[in-house]
């Protein structure tokens, strides 16, 4: 490949990016030749998006070098990336629904007539048709974008990128919204693009696609590169094996809890387009893991259970009784607690102190309309002590704490009352090691008290070491429920992506 060296389109050298305690990328190198499809695979949170964002200028790396068409940078701005020919094809973004296909292609760089302020619609139309023809796309320049299917929208984005002379196309899960026919059409387009010398970075969870369309593949795991291989020299099995496999230190060894009777059950939970007929039961003392790729419907399932999303169909049973849950209020009253995924957006009261953040759900512990400020204070101090929250005082504002301590407070608010079912959605996201262990410990303590626990997690070690059983979600369905002792990381990831 030495002769191609000078024509390298992209070369990322030793890219490192650290968020707080979390190492999103560690010395990752990646390159792309003209006319090549280079695939990027890895689990949720392996660092694919971070790498792509660095290349498109949205994120500044802490270390490393970004070279595009021979020009090297420490960091890029989005504008630089575009000028250098990097273009990302998003699902739906960047298109104006009320304009035509041609107008969208030329948006921001309109062709003008002799008068510079008048758009030359005719010229745009003709030029758009030209680009569409060279790619043999089923697009009509005069159509309004709102009338396009999602696959046509994607084609329009590709057209737009080509008009702007993009040399590097990034496709992030391009087939997730496409049907079989449309997928085939996309593969065809990719081949045409390759023949025109355009380099494509292709990200997909669907490994078959990668083996169909890719030239090389780079595998990421926990922010490090597991190597780059020619597709012809590797098998699907080998790729999967490299995506998983960690040393024992990543796993938490927990105490086992004897399981009691079934305390919580859902039957045929359905929400059109999001969740299809999900059923499972959780016993007292059990930790039931919910695994799957991002977008597989995991969070939607728990939001349906908690009443934050209205159910289309399905039943929820609590302790042998049918639960009627139409709002979070109902869920809480019937003994369900939810610790949501995004604590800043969905759980924290910014600008308020720890007492108010802890006592948030417990307005009804005491009767009457008046607050019991002294008791609240003592309860908060108890929680701070119990969960070892690092804080100067209970009157500190919650945003002044570290991520792990914020999470402890958010969890702590559900410990004052007796709940039967605890739902944790990504309980240790953005949390440091120490806090992580304390949270795991707490989950086991809750199990020992006979609570039922549902835990969503994107972290394989967490899912495998904490859960008794794991429900596997794929495209809105629960495709399997497995004993976590009897499965491996490799088995899980295969089940998530369906190979």
């Amino acid at each position: 490949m030495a002769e191609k060296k000078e024509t390298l389109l992209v070369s990322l050298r030793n890219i490192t990016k650290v968020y707080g305690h979390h190492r999103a990328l560690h010395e990752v190198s990646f390159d792309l030749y003209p006319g090549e499809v280079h695939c990027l695979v890895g689990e949720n949170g392996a660092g694919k998006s971070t790498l792509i964002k660095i290349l498109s200028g949205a994120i500044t790396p802490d270390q490393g070098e970004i070279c595009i068409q021979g020009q090297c940078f420490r960091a890029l701005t989005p504008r630089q990336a575009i000028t250098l020919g990097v273009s990302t094809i998003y699902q739906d973004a960047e298109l104006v629904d009320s304009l035509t296909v041609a107008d969208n292609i030329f948006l921001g760089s309109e062709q003008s007539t002799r008068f510079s302020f008048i758009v030359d619609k005719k010229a745009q139309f003709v030029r758009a048709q030209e680009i569409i023809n060279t790619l043999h796309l089923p697009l009509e320049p005069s159509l309004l974008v709102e009338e396009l299917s999602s696959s046509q929208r994607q084609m329009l984005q590709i057209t737009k990128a080509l008009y702007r002379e993009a040399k590097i196309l990034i496709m992030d899960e391009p087939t997730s919204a496409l049907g079989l026919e449309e997928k085939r059409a996309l593969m065809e387009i990719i081949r045409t693009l390759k023949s025109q010398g355009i380099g494509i970075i292709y990200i997909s969870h669907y490994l078959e696609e990668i083996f169909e369309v890719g030239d090389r593949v780079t595998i990421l795991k926990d922010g490090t590169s597991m190597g780059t291989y020619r597709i012809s020299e590797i098998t699907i099995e080998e790729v999967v094996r490299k995506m998983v496999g960690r040393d024992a230190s990543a796993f938490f060894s927990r105490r086992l809890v004897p399981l009691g009777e079934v305390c919580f059950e859902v039957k045929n939970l359905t929400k059109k387009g999001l969740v299809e007929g999900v059923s499972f039961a959780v016993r007292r003392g059990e930790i039931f893991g919910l695994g799957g790729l991002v977008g597989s419907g995991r969070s939607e399932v728990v939001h349906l259970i908690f009443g934050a999303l209205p159910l289309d169909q399905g039943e929820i049973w609590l302790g042998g009784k049918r639960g009627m849950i139409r709002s979070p209020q109902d869920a809480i009253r019937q003994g369900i607690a939810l610790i949501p995924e995004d604590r800043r957006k969905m759980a924290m009261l910014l600008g308020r102190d720890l007492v108010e953040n802890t006592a948030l759900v417990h307005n009804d512990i005491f009767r009457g309309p008046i607050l019991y400020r002294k008791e609240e204070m003592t309860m908060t101090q108890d929680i701070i002590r119990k969960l070892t929250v690092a804080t100067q005082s209970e009157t500190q504002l919650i945003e002044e704490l570290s991520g792990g301590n914020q999470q402890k407070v958010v969890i702590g608010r559900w410990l004052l009352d007796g709940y039967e079912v605890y739902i944790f959605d990504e309980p240790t996201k953005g949390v440091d090691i120490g806090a992580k262990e304390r949270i795991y410990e707490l989950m086991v303590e809750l199990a020992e008290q006979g609570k039922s626990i549902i835990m969503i997690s994107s972290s394989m070690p967490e899912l495998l070491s904490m859960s008794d059983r794991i429900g596997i979600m794929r495209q809105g369905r629960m495709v399997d429920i497995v004993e976590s002792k009897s499965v491996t990381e490799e088995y899980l990831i295969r089940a998530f992506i369906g190979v």
Partner: protein
Amino acid sequence: MKKNRLAEKNALFRNQWFFLLVVEIGLAIVTGIVNPRFFTTSNLMNILEQVAVLGIVSSGMTLLIISGEIDISVGANIGLSSCVMAMMMKAMRFSFLPVAVGILLAVGNSFLVGITSRGFKAPSFITSLAFISVFQGIALAITKGSFQTIYGQFETIGMTRVAQILPLSFIISIGAYLFVHFLLSQTKLGRRIYSVGSNPQAAYLSGISVAHTKLTAFFLNGLFVGIATMVLLSRIGAAQPSTGTGLELRAIGAVVIGGTPLSGGKGRIIGTLFGVFLMGIISNTLNMLRVNPYFQEVTFGLLIIASLAVSVLSSYGKTR
């Protein structure tokens, strides 16, 4: 260390309204030197009387803004309610029922702003903006644009001076401040108002009914507007559709100057109290210095903009 931190925080908090107090005293001294009549008892009581109505309206506004909502139709609401009160009094020669109806009307109006905002998922800023012209239009229609005078008929509240000195209207406004202070610091409703203003989604997922809480804030805001209408009518002895115009701006200004951000979830009534005083003293000062009344309007507008600048700058300092 813990005590230190608390003390530090208290000092910080004190600074906020302490700053206002210092400005107010400074203004008073300057005015007093230019025009010694400023410090006469009658003038000081006059100021207290003048800020009473603004204080009551601002108390309700504080609740509403902390809950993450706003009502800019309070001025028009006062106009309509006071016209209805005055017309009924004229017709009935009896004041209890008209006052009750007027207050209920004010509550209903504010509630309507809240309901439409929740129901149509529109910001309350927009719905209340629309209701300004609804309220004013109705007031103009029922009065045919004319003055409704009730001189001598309903003067007790406006004219009474407790112990021959303190205006009763001012005592009522103090009652409003105390009520809001108690509500915000000691009750579950107050806690919920802060939580829906700070993060409605978190509040919802914690089992708090966001709609219920915000509508309660609108209800209370209407109640305060109704009481303010009663006090104002009693003091002036007449009503017209334009009564109360401009009061919304001063009330919002007083709340913001008092340190309650328009983004909601934060703030205390004591800040509003000093914000209202600042408005009153500036108004009185400008009168004493014989500044053209049109320029007084300009001054209030600029003051509110300055207070927004201060709040942006102080939060900028914190995030750094």
